[in-house]
């Protein structure tokens, strides 16, 4: 009986851990293949764009300003659908926004003056800073949505 339970637990553990380990391994491999220097640059470039266009409202730590500017850490807006996030940059937004029961009143300006690569960089930066971890955004992804808009 006890043995059976143990086996069950082991099986469950393996079921959860193994894919995760494989996934992590795969991540490492893919990073190694796609030149690590380039990956680092995107974050660095993204941070530059962030400091210039985003930090005054969303703050350097991405925490936002209570009642005014929403936080960027661990919200569905940042970590969720990439297209929605890209569109917020390209179109701006002046809709009521509620996160964790708090509302934020300042509008998000339209920042379509930024180049595709700059938008990809800054979104990759915010999706991988302030405690966030999410897939990178690429310039072609931005370009596709920008051309759709026109």
């Amino acid at each position, binding site marked *: 009986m006890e043995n059976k339970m143990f086996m069950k637990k082991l099986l469950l553990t393996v079921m959860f851990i193994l894919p995760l380990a494989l996934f992590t391994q795969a991540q490492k491999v893919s990073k190694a293949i796609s030149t690590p220097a380039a990956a680092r640059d995107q974050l660095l470039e993204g941070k530059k764009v962030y400091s210039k266009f985003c930090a005054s409202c969303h703050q350097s730590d991405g925490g936002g*300003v209570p009642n005014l500017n929403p936080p960027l850490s661990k919200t569905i807006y940042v970590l969720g659908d990439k297209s929605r996030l890209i569109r917020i940059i390209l179109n701006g937004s002046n809709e009521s926004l509620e996160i964790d029961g708090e509302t934020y009143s300042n509008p998000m300006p339209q920042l379509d003056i930024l180049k595709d690569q700059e938008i990809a960089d800054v979104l990759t930066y915010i999706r991988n800073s302030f405690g966030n971890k999410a897939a990178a955004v690429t310039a072609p992804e931005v370009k596709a949505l920008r051309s759709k808009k026109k």
Partner: protein
Amino acid sequence: MIIPLLTAGIFCSLYAFKNNPSTGSQLRPPRTDADNAGLKLPPGFGALVVADSIGKARHIVVTKEGNLYVKLAKPVKEKGIIYLQDKNGDGRMDEQSGFGNYGGTGLYLKDGVLYASSNDEVFSYRLNEKNEVLDQNNPAKLITKLKKGRQHDTKSIVLDNSGNIYVNIGAYSNSCQQKDRTPGSPGIKGCPILDSAGGIWQFKANKLNQSYGDGIRYATGVRNVVGLDWNQQNNTLFVMQHGRDQLNGLWPDLYDEKTSALLPAECLYMLKKGDNAGWPYVYYDQYQKKNIQAPEYGGDGKKEGSKEYINPALAFPGHLAPNGLLFYTGNQFPEKYRNGAFIAFHGSWNRTPEKQEGFYVVFAPFKDGMPTGAWEIFADGFAGTDQVMSPRDAKHRPCGLAQGPDGSLYVTDDVKGTVYRILYNGK
């Protein structure tokens, strides 16, 4: 001889205590907190926390009995106005109730009537002889259908001595750009926002269901006001404007980050009927000491604005966010404070990458409605830390101010919902 006197003394104080529980706090000043509630104050002053965790506490009034009404930005359990009583007379509020299921900022008490605002309406509640609300569920609706954008939507209120109520209607924009807060976007010619916002409107304090057609635009070109008060010495309205944001973010070629952290000034205006403070066309530069043409309207940081716009009575550093203004008329504080202005600064968010500033209450001496000296920080330490890099670092942020019947100064905090009382106990 001594013993009977002592006994009589104790008996008297007990008697007073028992029979005037609601006014107990006026008989004897309350004991201040050992750490002065965490505040840094001038010598001779002390402070205590009289209430805590009541919600996003905005403006506040104190009744002559020493009880408090506090307006909440967001109702808690469907109560948007909190009534706090000190039943045992120790100066700390021990009974809490509430009413008014709407969020808002404005609150004012005058001649037996409590006035309160939501973000688009103003209500009045009649009070009984103990300053308790007679009918909590059925206030009179004085003013309705006021413009409410997403930004600057709060409606602060104050009354004069001639039956008028003044309401700020904030501009729902930073600088009336064609595209709000968008780098390089020009200002809209003849900013249309000013027709129904970006100013102070005057209404009758006793007339029902008024809106724009019933009131007058008393002063215009005022971007957004939260703190305002009626100066009883010169019988004039004073308001604290929240100045425009993001000079560097929107116009990086004209303003560097450091300049943008300090400009424009947060202005204290004395407003007379018909005054125009110049938003969005100009902003006040406290270093050049003049109104400067806004970059959205062809300014370059130096070009002076039109002379038709008024100058402030006082100018403070940029972005400090003045949310409370009170002219002190009490006798408790030393002579220099009489008729002077206390201003509660909520603290900045728009100084990144510099550290944020504000989060304190300042004092500026006044006589007959004219400033008579330099302003100084009066109460500091609300933030609970010296370095506020982002406003979220601040544990408390000062917002509303009120004067107690004994001349104590009350300060609200809209982060944790703390209410402070500051007393002078020096000689």
